[in-house]
């Protein structure tokens, strides 16, 4: 599903590489944590998988597509097969929960009729049934993140990337979001999550890949937060 082959990424003007000769293979349906201190290069992995940055060396393959040499005009279509959730939710403040999710569908060319059918379903799935018409500021942090997850998942992507999705949430809410991600994972979606929330990693007991200074120092099948 996802392969990094000896990937090195050095940002311009950086003194050392963010990722240094990293190789990882992730199978379809896996749930993987990338952990490590700030600046270790975790988020660079997400950016590589989204084709937001390209590696200096090595190969990145996502959904059996070689992203390394993908032309930028192909990027939009490529991204439709990937859902993405961030620490800061990235919701549109002037749109309701429903509209936020529907917006993601409409801008990739789906009709309003499709949105009417699919959006309530996915909002129900993330546990926001009955709150479709609330604006983000009328929702709690956890609920906002649920909207973001609904938006990421509404297309039924093969891969869900989560960049510190619980970073802004309290422990109890974080657990709820993790349950949601777990449920999405059980539908067959590959989930890649970057975090430094040790509590969550220890509870989930999933594959843990630890990165330090751009190198993989641990790759454990049912790991804990070191």
């Amino acid at each position, binding site marked *: 599903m996802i392969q990094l082959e000896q990937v090195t990424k050095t940002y311009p003007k950086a003194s050392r590489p963010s990722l240094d000769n990293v190789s990882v293979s992730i199978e379809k349906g896996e749930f993987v944590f990338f952990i490590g201190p700030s600046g270790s290069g975790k988020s660079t992995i997400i950016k590589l998988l989204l084709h937001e940055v390209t590696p200096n060396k090595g190969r990145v393959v996502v959904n059996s597509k070689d992203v390394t040499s993908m032309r930028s005009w192909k990027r939009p279509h*490529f991204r439709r097969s990937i859902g993405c959730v961030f620490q800061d939710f990235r919701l*549109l403040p002037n749109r309701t929960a429903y509209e936020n999710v529907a917006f993601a569908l*409409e801008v*990739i060319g789906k009709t309003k009729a499709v949105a009417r059918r699919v959006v309530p379903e996915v909002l129900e799935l993330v546990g926001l049934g009955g709150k479709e018409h609330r604006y983000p500021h009328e929702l709690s942090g956890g609920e906002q993140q649920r909207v973001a997850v609904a938006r990421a998942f509404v297309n039924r992507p093969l891969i869900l990337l989560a960049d510190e999705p619980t970073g802004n949430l309290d422990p109890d809410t974080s657990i709820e979001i993790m349950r949601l991600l777990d449920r999405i994972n059980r539908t067959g979606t590959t989930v890649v999550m970057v975090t430094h929330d040790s509590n969550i990693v220890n509870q989930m007991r999933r594959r843990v890949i630890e990165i330090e200074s751009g190198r993989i120092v641990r790759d454990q099948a049912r790991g804990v937060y070191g």
Partner: protein
Amino acid sequence: MRVKYVLSEVLVGLWRNVTMTIAMIITMAVSLTMLGASGLMYRQVNDMKDLYYKNIEVSIFLSKEANEQQRADLHAKLKSDPLVKEVVFVNKDEAYKRFQEMFQDAPDLLSAVKADSLPESFRLKLVNPEQYREIYNQYKDTEGVDEIVDQSQLLDKIFKILTSVQNIALAAAAVMAIAALLLVANTIQVAAYSKRREVAVMKLVGASNWFIQAPFVLEAVVAGLIGSLLGLVALVAAKYLLFDGALSDLQGLLSPVTWGDILVMFPIMAGVGGLVSAVTAWVTLRFYLRV
């Protein structure tokens, strides 16, 4: 649905930043009016050149001492000259008649000049009026020729002035176009900034580049087209007030500006306005949205 979405985004975009939109439209309109005006002038000057140069005459004045034989020789020579299309001989009486017509409002002058004192002349129409020099060189030393006068020298001066006025209008159009261009770039930047969240989400979920850019580009194009419409209105007003109004006394001198002439300018203005706006917006987005 997508078309509807894009169009509503365009309207919202224009309205959200309405002061900037108005500034953009006004500069665009002024610039395009200048462009249209200099285009019209270009056509006018060409029309007038055709008209005037076609009727241009070279006058060969004979000296008082010229005798019958010299006159007849010259006449024959001119008639057989391939550069000359038409020769008319103006004798003293006819010269006086012309003089009387020309200065009928100045009786003092008329009474001071006797029919006898005006020189005889040949009035030539040339096949190609620009070959005046050759005629001049060929005949200036012929016996009995006093002076050769070419109207085209005067016309050259007039057209030089008209051409420079036209160039000034074009330069003004260019300067205003730069201002309009900067305003478009700025408006698009502001619009892109105010929609940065939407754009970020669109990029994230994989909206196509044209779909992200279209509302911004169309916003600029609509402003450009409105500007060109205002420019058309300005040209129509100029025809009403200037050519049909203040300058109507000069009707005989200026070749007339028709409604057709003005309408022909409109597609040019609209095309330039729309295209310049679109390209500017698109380039701005390249730098600013990095899509």
